[in-house]
């Protein structure tokens, strides 16, 4: 019986070296060689500075940018070191209250929105760092963006539709828009059209 413990200890040491060290090290080497961008977190730069990750959602509050979903990650939301959802159940008073609050805030921020309120903009994501909103969630915000930037809603809509990612292979997942990508495109488009963005608020 003692022999089993000695075998266990030796096998543990060997397998820790193989599967706990060599395997992740080798995979890191391979990943860094073949897919360095993804392996390092899909970082995104603008004007020479790293401004975020293409796969991680960020907190957006300024009216001239598209906003993401409510987030329960960290104190202010969108904290990748504190991921998670609200974990509130369907009959939770707190959930209903916070949904009401989100609806009111959305209406206040988007007085000219003509579309129905999209579900994703009033519910917290699972990770708290959801990088996407639904296309409906983006179109809903278009009139606000247009008025803030002094461009037409039509041109905002066309930027959105250029950045909608459909279902993978036509059937996996759901259509979505990456908020960071969309906001970068928005800044670029405004620069290109060279219209000075009037700020009225």
């Amino acid at each position: 019986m003692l022999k089993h413990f000695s075998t266990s200890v030796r096998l543990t040491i060997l397998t820790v070296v193989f599967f706990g060290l060599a395997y992740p090290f080798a995979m890191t080497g391979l990943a860094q060689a073949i897919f360095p961008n993804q392996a390092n977190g899909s970082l995104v730069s603008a004007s020479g500075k790293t401004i975020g990750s293409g796969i991680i959602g960020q907190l957006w509050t300024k009216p001239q940018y598209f906003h993401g979903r409510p987030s329960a990650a960290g104190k202010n939301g969108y904290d990748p070191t504190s991921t998670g959802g609200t974990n509130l159940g369907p009959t939770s008073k707190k959930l209903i209250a916070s949904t009401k609050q989100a609806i009111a805030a959305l209406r206040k921020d988007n007085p000219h929105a003509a579309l129905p309120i999209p579900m994703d903009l009033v519910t917290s994501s699972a990770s708290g760092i959801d990088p996407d909103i639904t296309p409906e969630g983006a179109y809903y915000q278009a009139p606000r963006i247009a008025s803030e930037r002094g461009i037409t809603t039509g041109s905002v809509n066309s930027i959105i539709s250029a950045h909608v990612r459909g279902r993978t292979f036509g059937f996996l997942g759901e259509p979505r828009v990456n908020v960071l990508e969309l906001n970068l495109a928005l800044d670029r488009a405004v620069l290109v059209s060279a219209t000075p963005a009037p700020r009225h608020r």
Partner: protein
Amino acid sequence: MSVVGWLQAVVLFLVVLALTKPIGLFMAKVFQGERTWLSPVFVPVERFIYRISGVREDEEMPWNTYMFAVLAFSAVGFAWLYLLLRTQAWLPFNPQHLANVPPALAWNTAVSFTTNTNWQFYSGESTMSYLSQMAGLTWHNFVSAAAGIALAIALIRGIARTTVKTLGSFWVDLTRACLYILLPISIVACLVLVMQGVPQNFHAYQTVTSIEGVSQTITGGPMASQEAIKELGTNGGGFVNANSASPNENPTPFSDFIEMLLILLIGAGLTYTYGKMVKDTRQGWALFTAMSLLFFAGLVVVYWAEAAGNPLTHHLGVLGSNMEGKEVRFGAAASALWATITTATSCGAVNAMHDSFTAIGGLIPLINMQLGEIIFGGVGSGLYTKLVFVVLTVFIAGLMVGRTPEFLGKKIERREVTLAMLSILITPLLVLVPTAIAALIPAGLATLNNSGPHGFSEILYAFTSTNANNGSAFAGLGPNLFYNLTTGVNMLFGRFAEVIPIMALAGALAGKKAVPEGSGTFTTYSPVFVALLIGTIVIVGALTFLPADALGPIVEHLFSLQGKTF
């Protein structure tokens, strides 16, 4: 529900179906010691491991020795992880300078990963050093999965062999499962996941400033290598707190598809391995069929409930499916599919927060675990639990026709039925009693995130999940000393108290003589048998757990229809 939503479930199922035979056949070859295309690479490695560990390749163990080896190896693995977590602050690969894990949490986590549960009372991104993630958790993901596969193979040998006392060698089965099955698939899967965007690095977290000037800390680490084996080994312990809902662990709908496939792959393949090793593949396909029917029955309900959405939110004028605790890229369909898969198996990884599912959407994951995770199941554990139900079904069928029951040419007698029942009855004891206690004492109620029936569901889900070695959670339930200790004990018994009678059963079956099949022999691959097997599973599960489920999700559903909140 939509046609597209169903299409991803059906395509995933067809891919699993197509891979079941090749992977099952490959596993049968590996565990019968035959040459495979990977032998040239791994035979030398295997020999090296045996030489250093003092293992004889041709050693044969009786059931109790096999079981003792499993326990000894698990004890050493537990001690290693506990030690690692308690000392990680002083060890390398800790760029965030994370502190040593406190004793109660380290104990709970060490039990959790040793038992293939991967219940997590911590947030990985702010608790675990890279060394703990790799040499502790990733390593456990390999060996606890391999131990599960080994146990299933030992039971299959018990069924297939006649008049012998031995079931093979645990050391050899463990080594082969790791080397030939888990490692190669993990390597490929890891690279696919990196391609999709899962990080794989050793950097310290990077602080960036967004366009709006908000500071954000981007996490990193060797995530993809852990993610691959976490799903393949049906472990389910996330690198980060949000688990596979986090875009770090699961960035795209395609990575989601791959991860779901990994979760199902070995559990499905083992049904074929079983058929092959008992020399009648119809036996394996009968189990596969029963599993598939139960799988789709659960999926229909979860998908329907989540797509229909929360009536209380609809009253506020926002229509659509339930998106609370879900990611946009997955939506209701992929989240419902994942929830069904992760609880049909003993995986427990999540791509949405089950705590925020609708009442009925959350009921099905609970039921899947209460049925014993026999729908494809955990790697190995799914098959051995299912085979216990097969023995019970054969016995019930024997009672119906008044004949000594036989199973693959072996008489099922008092000892076998006693052992099978013992293993089945341990589950409700370990789920319902602690749930009742927790619901009555302040320590059990102190860390709930929800009140009313949903709070009770959080408790019931915690003990169901830990006992079933699943590890998914109604994650609002927070840790305290009471839950660290009780769920830890529950995980230990859930794994080992269940498996000891099963191994005794394997030993009893191996020692039996084969009796020739007669005209009155009940075939264990016919549609009638499949129906009877499903009936047995559902009746045992429903009779045991329906009253408790009624107090949680079922009553909550009725309240949600009335618009009552808590």
